[in-house]
């Protein structure tokens, strides 16, 4: 798990938000390099609510045009680190 000074546990925060949408997830079983929506069975409503949770709690804006880049959990974390500086 990579940590940055600005966000000591970004992965933990993101997974906590994911857990509010999909309570059945096990953090240890989530692979950062596998498509997230297949691992967690998120439909488009779940996905939207997940991204709303991230944008509200981490205070980042995520344009819809960027959704396509956010395939794996790793993609999402990289994206957020860039956004959060």
């Amino acid at each position, binding site marked *: 798990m990579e940590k940055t000074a600005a966000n000591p546990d970004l992965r933990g925060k993101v997974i906590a938000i994911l857990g509010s949408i999909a309570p059945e997830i096990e953090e240890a079983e989530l692979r950062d390099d596998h498509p997230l929506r297949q691992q967690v069975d998120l439909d*488009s409503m779940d996905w939207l609510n997940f991204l709303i949770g991230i944008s*509200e709690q981490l205070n980042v804006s*995520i344009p819809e045009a960027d959704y396509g880049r956010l395939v794996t959990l790793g993609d999402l974390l990289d994206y957020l680190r860039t956004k959060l500086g």
Partner: protein
Amino acid sequence: MFEFKLPSLGADMDEGKLLEWKVKPGDAVRKGQVVAIVDTSKAAVDVEIWQDGTVHELLIAPGETIPVGTVLATLLEPGEKPGAAPTARAPVAGRQRISPAARKRAEALGVDVARLKGSGPGGALTLADVDAAVATPAGSKAPAQVPAKAVDADKQTEMRRAIAAAMSRSKREIPHYYLLETIPMARAQQWLAGINAGRPITERLLMAVLQLKAVALALTKYPDLHGFFRDGRFEPAAAAHLGVAISLRQGGLIAPALHEVDKKPLDQLMRELTDLVKRTRAGSLRSSEMSDPTITVTNLGEQGVESVVGVIYPPQVALVGFGRVALRPWVEDDALCVMPTVVASLAADHRVSDGHRGALFLAELRARLQQPQDL
């Protein structure tokens, strides 16, 4: 005075367990107000009253399991004086008051209700009283004892059984026919992307909302595809209440109503759909949402399937299914191109409509999705 009965909450529910009263005698209630919470095989449901009045008497106690149609309470009409009616309805001496569920059980078990003492509201006989009478030998002075209740069946098993019963009934009674149509989605996707690009994430729309609105608008021309088939005849729908199939994370599904979809703007539909999904998954639905759907729409494309051919949810007469929106080879203007498309399906009831009508409906649906700005 009028009776408030347990409403039907869908084809897969024929009884419910009263969990809680939200009102007490003397309370004024408004049409649409939640007056009780009833647990069903699928979810706990907030049961709404369908007319204004004042609660007169609660006839069923929390904890009782009652069949659909059971009188739960009596209410006074607006303006009706309390006092007069109760006297008229006061039980004749020696005549036992008994809940309909208890009466049914007593009849089935051959129990003489006149000998029993009721423990329900106002001394009414309840199911538990009847069960206790069976468990206690006649003439015995032993205190009435409720037989150990069968351990609550696992909710999942119960839901699976309920779904199986409704779907078996559908396949047994409804002569289904099925039609499929591939619909180009480039215009709808481009329009949606344009709309969402200028919006904060909390106000963005999902393609599912466009699809639901297009179905509702297409239905306005084809009333024979939504409504109820009951007692051997078809009752056309008064409004386009679309049942939205929502899968539950723990398994199973519920298809509660999104009301009057044809009349609402997309933004409002998106807010209502978001709320409906949230409440469905949290187990907080209203009785009207369970009983009102006039047609069901299922979208299995999210899980990646090409198309879905559905089973009609009785007493409805049709189901629309959407598969995955994906890029596929397509011919337009005599040239091969790459096009986002979706396969829309219709399963409909041959007792009410024919394939020709169904085909026209799918063509209308396709046309509506080519004009997303008009949705």
